[in-house]
């Protein structure tokens, strides 16, 4: 059998930084898509509650230590950083750990960088800490989460990692260039 070399989605691409903003890759974490079976929404919410989490409403996330549950679409959530205990049989579960590139964008200019690629109001009043959006980053489908006043988590399909880094880095440089004028 061939000897395979394990690489992360953004291996060799990140981190990159400008004066105001840094873009890095988040460490590997288990990602499980959780889609409750019809009529089992309450049971799924209870199982997540037992893990210290809960079912996130649309556009929301629930966090407990290193584990988190992100709303990820209609009747779908991503369980990140924890095994899907007690969910078998009541929800469709798919391991998507290797399917996503997870990035972290941070700095005073982070919102301005995202404004060049995402057509959403990302001001804290409209998109507060813990808020999640499933939306477009340029032409890519992405999951966006606000982690703090100046930091965001961005997830794109793993196959899009190179394009996402390119687009984000380009926006970072453009914001830095404008600030330098």
């Amino acid at each position: 059998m061939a000897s395979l070399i394990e690489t992360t989605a953004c291996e060799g691409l990140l981190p990159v930084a400008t004066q105001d903003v840094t873009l890095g890759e988040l460490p590997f974490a288990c990602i499980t898509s959780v889609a409750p079976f019809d009529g089992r929404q309450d049971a799924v919410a209870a199982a997540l509650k037992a893990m210290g989490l809960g079912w996130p409403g649309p556009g929301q996330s629930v966090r407990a230590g290193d584990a988190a549950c992100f709303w990820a679409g209609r009747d779908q959530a991503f369980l990140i950083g924890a095994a899907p205990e007690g969910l078998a049989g009541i929800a469709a579960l798919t391991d998507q750990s290797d399917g996503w590139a997870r990035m972290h964008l941070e700095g005073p200019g982070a919102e301005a960088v995202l404004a060049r690629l995402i057509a959403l109001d990302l001001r804290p009043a409209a998109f507060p800490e813990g808020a999640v959006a499933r939306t477009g980053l340029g032409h890519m489908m992405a999951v966006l989460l606000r982690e703090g006043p100046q930091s965001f988590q961005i997830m794109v399909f793993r196959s899009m990692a190179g394009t996402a880094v390119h687009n984000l880095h380009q926006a970072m440089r453009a914001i830095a260039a404008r600030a330098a004028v």
Partner: protein
Amino acid sequence: MRLTCPLCGDRDRREFHYYGAEVYADRPDAGAALDAWDDYLHLRDNPAGETRDLWYHEIGCSAWIVVTRDTVSHRILQTALLTARQRQVGKFVYQEGDLREVPAKPGAATGGERP
């Protein structure tokens, strides 16, 4: 143009995929008459005014949305999840996206009921 996804809120039109008239969600039964299939596949109204069509929130939450809009004024009048639509099948009313079956009220219409 912007559409309000019932789950995601106000979003740019580029996040959506247009699928056509709402009646495309009312698939005839397998044994339906040829006329019903012809109607379902090929015949559409082209109203000047209020119309209802299906949009898919493709670069978003993956929900199918029934959009009521006015083709004359271009106003969006209502958006609703397709799964929230009630459907009458035989003597049952199905709330799509939910397994509950509710016996239909006597005298209720037998066509697709709108939310």
